[in-house]
C-alpha cells in the first residue's frame, strides 16, 4: 500500500518534469527559435544551420500530437537528439561528464553522512551543556551558507592567498602523467576543494537532523532500561541510539542527495569542474535545448531512483515493517 502510493507519486513527478520539458520551450513567445533570436540577452547568436537543427529537433513543422509522440519515443530510446554546442549526441556528451560529478558527489556524500551522523550523535549525547549550544548554532549558520559562497571562500583562501590547491578544473591541462599514480594524485588534488565544499554544505544539515533524532531517541524508556542493564556507553550509542535514530534519517538524507546532485551545478561552476553540473550551466546559458532536456531527464530519474532506493532500504532496517508484510498485515 505504502509503496504503491509512493510509486504513483514518482510517476507523477516524472510526468510533470517531462511535460515541463515539452511545454516550456514551445510556449516561449514565437517558439524557441524566435525567442532565441529576439532574446533580450543578445550574446546568443544562432546560425541558419542551427535554426534548421532546432526546427528539426522540435519537429516544429509537424502537429502538436506528432511532436509529443516523437518526444516520448526519444525518451524511451535515450535519444535526446544532437547537442547544438557540442555537435555530438546528447547521450555521449553527458556520459563523458558524468563520472566527474559522480566522483565528487559520491565522495562528498560518504564523507558528509559519516561526519554528520557521528557529530550529531555525540552532540546529542552531550546535549546537557552550553558547549553543545554553541556547536549547534555554528552548525545552523554553516548549513545556511549557500554552497557557492563556501566554495568561493575556499578558492580565495587556499588557491589565491596560499596557492595550496589548483583554482579549478579536474586535472592539470596538457599534463602527461607518468603512470596511473601521478594521474591519481593530480585528479585527487583537483577534487579536494570541490569535495570539501560539497561536504561542508551537506554535513551541517545531516548533523542537525541526526542531533534532533538522537535526542528524541535518548529520551525513550528503552535507553534508560539499557543503561540500567549496565550496557556500556559505546554499545548504547551504537546499538540503541544510532540504530533507532538513523531510520527516519535515511529518507531525509537520500532526498538531500538529490539536492546535492542539483547543488553540484553551483560548486562545479565555482571550480570549473567538468561535471554535469557545469555542463548544465553551459547548456542553460547557450540555450542548448536538447542537452538541457537530456540533463533534466537524467537528474529527475536519478532523484526518483534515490527515493525509491530509500523506500526499499527502510524496511530492511526496521524489523517492524518487514514482519508486518510477511504477516500480510
Amino acid at each position, binding site marked *: 500500500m505504502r509503496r504503491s502510493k509512493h510509486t504513483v*507519486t514518482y510517476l*507523477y*513527478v516524472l510526468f*510533470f518534469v517531462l511535460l*515541463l520539458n515539452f511545454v*516550456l*520551450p514551445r510556449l516561449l513567445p514565437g517558439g524557441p527559435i524566435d525567442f532565441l533570436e529576439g*532574446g*533580450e*540577452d543578445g550574446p546568443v547568436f544562432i546560425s541558419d544551420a542551427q535554426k534548421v537543427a532546432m526546427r528539426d529537433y522540435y519537429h516544429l513543422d509537424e502537429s502538436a500530437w506528432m511532436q509529443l509522440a516523437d518526444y516520448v519515443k526519444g525518451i524511451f530510446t535515450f535519444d535526446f537528439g544532437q547537442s547544438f554546442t557540442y555537435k555530438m549526441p546528447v547521450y555521449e556528451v553527458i556520459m563523458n561528464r558524468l563520472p566527474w560529478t559522480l566522483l565528487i558527489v559520491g565522495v562528498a556524500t560518504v564523507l558528509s553522512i559519516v561526519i554528520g551522523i557521528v557529530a550529531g550523535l555525540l552532540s546529542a549525547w552531550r546535549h546537557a551543556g552550553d558547549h553543545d*549550544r554553541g556547536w549547534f*548554532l555554528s552548525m*545552523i*549558520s554553516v548549513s*545556511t*551558507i*549557500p554552497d*557557492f*559562497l563556501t566554495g*568561493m571562500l575556499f578558492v*580565495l583562501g587556499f588557491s*589565491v592567498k596560499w596557492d595550496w590547491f589548483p*583554482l579549478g578544473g579536474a586535472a592539470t591541462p596538457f599534463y602527461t602523467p607518468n603512470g596511473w599514480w601521478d594521474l591519481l594524485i593530480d585528479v585527487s588534488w583537483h577534487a579536494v576543494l570541490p569535495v570539501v565544499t560539497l561536504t561542508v554544505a551537506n554535513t551541517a544539515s545531516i548533523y542537525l537532523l541526526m542531533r534532533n533524532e538522537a535526542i528524541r531517541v*535518548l529520551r*525513550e*524508556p*528503552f535507553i*534508560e*532500561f539499557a*543503561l*540500567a*542493564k*549496565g*550496557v556500556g*556507553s559505546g554499545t*548504547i550509542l551504537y*546499538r*540503541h541510539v544510532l*540504530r533507532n535514530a538513523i531510520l527516519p534519517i535515511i529518507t531525509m538524507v537520500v*532526498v538531500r542527495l*538529490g*539536492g546535492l*546532485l*542539483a*547543488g553540484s*551545478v*553551483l560548486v562545479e561552476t565555482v571550480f570549473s569542474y567538468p561535471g554535469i553540473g557545469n555542463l*548544465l*550551466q553551459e*547548456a*542553460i546559458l547557450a540555450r542548448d535545448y536538447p542537452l538541457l532536456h537530456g540533463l*533534466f531527464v537524467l537528474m*529527475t530519474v536519478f*532523484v*526518483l531512483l534515490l527515493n525509491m532506493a530509500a523506500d526499499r532500504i527502510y524496511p530492511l*532496517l*526496521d*524489523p*517492524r515493517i518487514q*514482519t508486518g508484510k510477511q504477516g500480510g498485515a
Partner: protein
Amino acid sequence: MNRSKKAGSVIVACFVGLALAGPLLAGVEPFAFDGERLLTPSSVNWLGTNALGQDVFSQLSYGARTTLLIGLGVAVLSTTLSGVLGLMAGYFKRLDPLINGLANVLLVLPSLLLVLIVAAFTSGGVWQLIVTLGLLTWPGYMRLIRASVLSLREREFVKASQLFHGKPSYILRKHLMPFIVPLLRTKFILSFRQAVTMEASLSFLGLGDPNQPTWGKMLEQAFHQTETWMTTAWQWTIVPPMLALLLVTIGLALLSEGEHQQGNRLLRSYSPSSRVKLLLASSEIAASVPCAHSSVKAAEQTQRTEHCTATHAGSDNAVVVHDLSVVHNGRTILQPMSFSIAAGSVTAIIGESGSGKTTLARAVYGLLPDDVMSGAVYIRSGGTNGSSETSGTSDTSNICATNGSSAERGINRWVDAAFIVQDPRLSFNPLLTIGQQFMEAMQGTDASSITVSEKRLAAKQALREVQLSDRLLDSYPHELSGGMLGRALLALALINKPSLLIADEPTGALDPIVKWEILNLLVTKVREHGMTLLLITHDHQAALRVADDMMIIKDGQLLEHAPAEQWLHHPATSYSRELQALMPSIRRRHISEEFKKVGFQHREGCRNLKKEQRNVGRTT
C-alpha cells in the same frame, strides 16, 4: 529574547537599513560607467570600483534592495500559499488528496532543479523568480500546517463551534489561525532565506535578471575576471557582497532558530553513580569507620541505631540508604531520608504521582547524576558469587581484605541489582531481538569467559522459568503481547540473580488481569531466589497483598516505614489513614485475613532495632 535571536535581529536590521538608505547615500547609479576600472576604495568610491568601472558600494546597496524585494515577495507568496492550502487541506476532506498529492510531487524534486528548469526556458526576471520560487516552495510547511489542522479539527472547541453552525471561514480564522501563526512566522523567515540564497545562486550562474544589480551578479562578474585574482581587487569586489550574503543568511537563520529553547536536562547519568556503593559483605556503612577498629562491638555501643544497620548489613540488609536527598534546579525532589531494607523482604513504596517514588528508585539504583544527589546508598552485592547464601563466617574473615581494595566499589549494574520500569513494551529496544537484549544484560557478569552459546542457554532457561517458550529469543518485541513482554522482562531481571530488584510500577501499563498475573509471578520468583524487592506502585491493595514492609512517600518525604500489617492497623500518620480510607472496605478485610495466613518469618531478627532506625529516618 535570547542572545542568538538578538544578534540575528541586529544583522537583519542593518541589512534593511542598507537596502533603504544605501541607494540614497550612494549618489552614483549602480550601472554607471563613471569611474576608472578597479579603483581602490576612497572617499569618492567608498568600496572602490569593479572591472567595468562601476561603483561597488552603489551596487551593494541597490543589490540589498533587490534582495529585500525578492526575499519579501517570495516569503509573502510562499507563506500565504502554505497557510491557505494547509488550512484547506486539513479542514476540507475533499480538497486534501488533491493538495497533498501536489505537495508530494513537488517535494520529491529538489527546488533548485525545478527552478533551474524554469529558468532555463525563460528569461530570468525578478518578478518571474519571485513567482516561480513562491509557487514551488510552499509544500514543506503546508504539510506541517495540514497535520496540525487535522489534529486541531478533532478538538472540542472546534467541534463546539461547528455545532453552533460556525462558518468554516469563521472557524478557520478564529479558532485555527492562532495555532498556525507560529508556524507561519518560522516559514516566513525560512522562505526569505531560501529566496535570498536561491537568487544569489541563480545570479551567480548567470541566470539572474540582467537589468537588476544583485549581490550574486556582482560575485559572478568579479569571479569571471582574471584581474580579480591576479591583483588585490578581490578585496573590494568580492569580499563585500560575499560578506553581505553570509551575514544576511546567518542573521535570518539565527532569527528563526533563536526561538528553539534548550530542552530540559534529563536527570540521568550514563555511568553508575559514585554515591551508590556496594554494601560490604560484613560491615560498615560509611567508610569513616576505619577498618583497624574492627571491634564492631564498640561501635555498636556508641551508635546504637546505626550499628544495628551496620551489623546486619552483612547478614540481613540488602539496601542501606544514608541521608539521601535529591535537589535539582533549586527544587528539592527528595528530602533527606535514611532507611534500610532487610534482605529477602518485599518492600512497597507508595505515594501519589509526583511524590518522588520514581526519583527515589532511580537514586537508589544510581541512575541520577552525582551533582543532584547527596547522601549515600549501599547495596548488597549480588550475582552468582556474591549471593545471600554466603555464610557469616567467611564474611568476617575477609572484612579487612575487601575493605582495603574495594571499600568504595560502585555497584555492578544488573548483577548486584536490577531495575525494571513501567511499561514492558517501552523497555525493549524495538530493533533488537529479545535474545540480543538478554545477551547484553549478561555481559556485566564477572564470569566473562562464558560463551555465547552458554549465555543463550541461560537465557532460554530464564525464559522457561517464567513459562515462556525459548523460541522467543529470536523474536522482536513488537511480535509479543504486553503480558509476554512483562514476563520476558522479569526473566531478564532474574538472569544474573541480583540481590536486589527495584520494580518501578512494573505493571502500570498492563491491563488488570495480566497485571495480577505478572505481579504474582514477580513476587513468587523474588521469594524463590531469596532476592529483595523494592516495589513502587500506585496500587495500595496490591502492595498490601505482596509486601512485608510499606514505605509511604509524600512530597519527597518519607512519612512512614513500617511492616505492612502494622501500617494497616496502626497507621502513624493521618496521610496513611487517608490512603487507607480510599480502599474499599471489603478488600481491606480480605487483605487483613490474608495477612493472618501469611507468616512473617522473614523479619523476626532485628525487628525492634529496625523500628528505631526507621524513626531516626523519619525525623531526619
